[in-house]
């Protein structure tokens, strides 16, 4: 009995100790999809609206239209951003996934490398009306440059400077800043008496990356070499990160509390009139849901170092957006392509982008009058003239984590009143780069 008991103790502790560290996977078959179940599709949509329910309300009528046209029933699942990438990774590993899915366009090259997504060669593009229908910068964010895209652009966005008109008036500023020097001069006028000039999401890794990427371009830094090796510690990269963090540390136009923001708190600060400016992509719907009237805020291009926004060192935004991909293991390949064709058709693009406040990546759809309002005009111009895609490399995801964390740590230091120097910025970036080294 005693021996049995000992064995039971052993087995029980073993299983207790093991519960946390197990991690499984399954094998998959190759191949390019089949047409085994031509009547249904599963669609994973990313969360684009204020909440999941809003997305369902926008998408359901369109899916019903598609069913009427083709007889294919689309099962919709809207997945929050915090889960989407994990879900895709799990689907990739197990081979059990959706037929069609949305991906953040910055993941394109990473997911392309996994081989889970259907490559968009000439033949596939021909089935949805050809490659030329799409805006070039958006296509540039759909996979590594030397490969067939892993996805097609669905919604496009870019960064813009949103400002509070009344706060500008009160501070005696007559136009939004066009350069960073002007931003700091204006910012100092505004940042007093509990009010602050600029909002930031200091603990949001992706947002940090988006900001320092554009600033990096302005300092001539790319974060990756031509052949895809991490290059985080160049003088330009250090200067870019320092310039961003210095707006809190040295110029004091960002409130220290923003260092811990990661859930769009900077947007509610803006809506409440606590901060006068935010750098954001397509923020109109959020402002509206937070009770701000359209007349209260204005939009301008994100500042540059000098002159006007353009290419190269005058880049002032990343190419932001959502891509649509077909899962290679789909059991309804023809239906999937039809669905992508439907969603990227001129008519659907107009309806969907209008609802989401984004810019259609389909050229013909952009000409609709609905996309002429001032905000979208700025976003459209930025996308066409002065936006650059984030590095399309397989380890982009690691880059976001490593460098995003470095910026987060630097903001934490700045918020605690510690000085941020070129040396301390470089040290953080060296650490970030070392984490990439074993790839």
């Amino acid at each position, binding site marked *: 009995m005693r021996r049995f008991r000992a064995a039971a103790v052993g087995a029980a502790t073993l299983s207790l100790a093991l519960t946390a560290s197990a991690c499984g996977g399954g094998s998959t078959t190759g191949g390019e999809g089949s047409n085994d179940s031509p009547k249904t599709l599963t669609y994973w949509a990313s969360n684009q609206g204020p909440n999941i329910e809003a997305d369902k309300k926008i998408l359901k009528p369109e899916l019903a239209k598609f069913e009427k046209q083709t007889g294919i029933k689309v099962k919709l699942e809207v997945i929050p951003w915090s889960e989407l990438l994990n879900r895709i990774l799990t689907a990739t590993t197990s081979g059990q996934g959706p037929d069609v899915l949305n991906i953040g366009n910055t993941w394109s090259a990473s997911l392309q490398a996994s081989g889970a997504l259907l490559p968009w060669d000439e033949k596939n593009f021909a089935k949805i009306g050809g490659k030329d229908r799409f805006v070039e910068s958006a296509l540039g964010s759909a996979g590594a440059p030397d490969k067939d895209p892993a996805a097609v652009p669905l919604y496009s966005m870019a960064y813009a400077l949103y400002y509070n008109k009344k706060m500008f008036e009160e501070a005696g500023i007559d136009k939004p800043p066009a350069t960073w020097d002007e931003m700091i001069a204006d910012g100092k006028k505004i940042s007093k008496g509990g009010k602050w000039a600029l909002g930031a999401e200091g603990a949001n890794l992706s947002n940090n990356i988006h900001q320092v990427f554009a600033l990096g371009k302005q300092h001539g830094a790319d974060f990756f070499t031509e052949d895809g090796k991490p290059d985080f510690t160049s003088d330009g990269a250090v200067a870019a990160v320092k310039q961003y963090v210095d707006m809190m540390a040295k110029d004091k136009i960002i409130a220290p509390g923003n260092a811990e923001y990661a859930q769009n708190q900077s947007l509610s600060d803006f809506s409440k009139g606590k901060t006068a400016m935010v750098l954001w992509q397509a923020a109109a719907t959020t402002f509206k849901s937070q009770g701000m009237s359209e007349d209260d805020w204005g939009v301008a291009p994100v500042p540059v170092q000098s002159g006007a926004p353009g290419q190269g060192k005058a880049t002032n935004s990343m190419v932001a957006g959502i891509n649509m991909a077909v899962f290679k293991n789909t059991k309804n390949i023809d239906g999937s392509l039809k669905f992508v064709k439907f969603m990227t058709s001129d008519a659907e693009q107009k309806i969907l982008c209008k609802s989401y406040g984004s810019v259609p990546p389909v050229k013909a759809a952009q000409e609709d009058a609905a996309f002429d309002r001032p905000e979208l005009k700025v976003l459209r111009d930025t996308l066409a003239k002065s936006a650059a895609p984030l590095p399309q490399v*397989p380890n982009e995801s690691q880059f976001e984590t490593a460098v995003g964390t470095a910026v987060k740590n630097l903001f934490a230091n700045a918020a605690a009143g510690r000085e941020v120097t070129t040396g301390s910025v470089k040290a953080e970036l060296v650490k970030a780069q070392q984490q990439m080294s074993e790839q």
Partner: protein
Amino acid sequence: MSDTTVTTGTTGTTGTPATIVQGGKEPPATAPETGRAPRLRRPGRLRRIGLPYLLLLPALLLELLVHLLPIVIGIVMSFKELTQFFIRDWGAAPWSGLDNYKVSVDFDAPVGEALLHSFLVTCAFTLLSVGLCWLIGTTAAIYLQETFKGRGLLRALFLVPYALPVYAAVITWGFMFQRDNGLINHVLHDQLGLTDSAPFWLIGDNSFFALLTVSVWKGWPFAFLIMMAGLQNIPRDMYEAAALDGAGMWQQIRRITLPSLRSVNQVLVLVLFLWTFNDFNTPYVLFGRSAPEAADLISIHIYQSSFVTWNFGTGSAMSVLLLLFLLAVTGVYLWITSRERKSAHV
């Protein structure tokens, strides 16, 4: 493992709460008991011996499938170079021998150094959290032994943190710890004026204490529940006898309560240790996918090393190392505590 029965058996009290704990730890025990039922003894010898095993088989197979198979797969993965290039067909990932382990334990290189740091943070965090959970839980359980008005209400109230869904509770804590709008700073800084400037809780060094607070808040009701159950088994007359002999409250706790709870404690501390060491939800909900260095618990660290950086081989290797560590700690702990107990009974 069920030495409580020595005490419970003699006094004749039911002892159900204590056996619930033990029952949870034992593999399904119903099958062999059915086999022992008298009716089944009549058929031939072979069937008599074979039947219990036959009845055990489904449970055994399920155990293998649910528990052991994923573990074995995880261990296999740790010897592979499983990056995003191979996750779709990970059988094709190249074998990397001990490379993943070498990277993980090379404490001079950044990856190993970060893992070691995370490990030490986790050890400190676990010791403090388990200690405080145990202390608060035990104290509360002892105080609530006395009958007084409102005892039921207090007991129920104390169990609320344990009953709340983890996500909802931790998100609320996250709001409370916000620097500018959070309740904690409102009380500490705005109302009481204890600090010169409003401190950060979710970034920087204070994040360790924020995490510890939430962990203890979430964990102590379990200790309280188990201790309360254990206390039911101590016969009242022992206290009465002790009181007659002139023992004060502190002596009663030290000489009667704690020794009688020894086996309950043994399980409780172990379970708390394993839960706390492996806790993923609390730091993940509180800090997101990149925890501040001061609160970089090992579970989050491993998650980051595998899911966020898409390097499942290294993540698995770290998991296996963690597993070995926990197994070693558990083994040593059980060995020491059972030896102590044996000598105590002689």
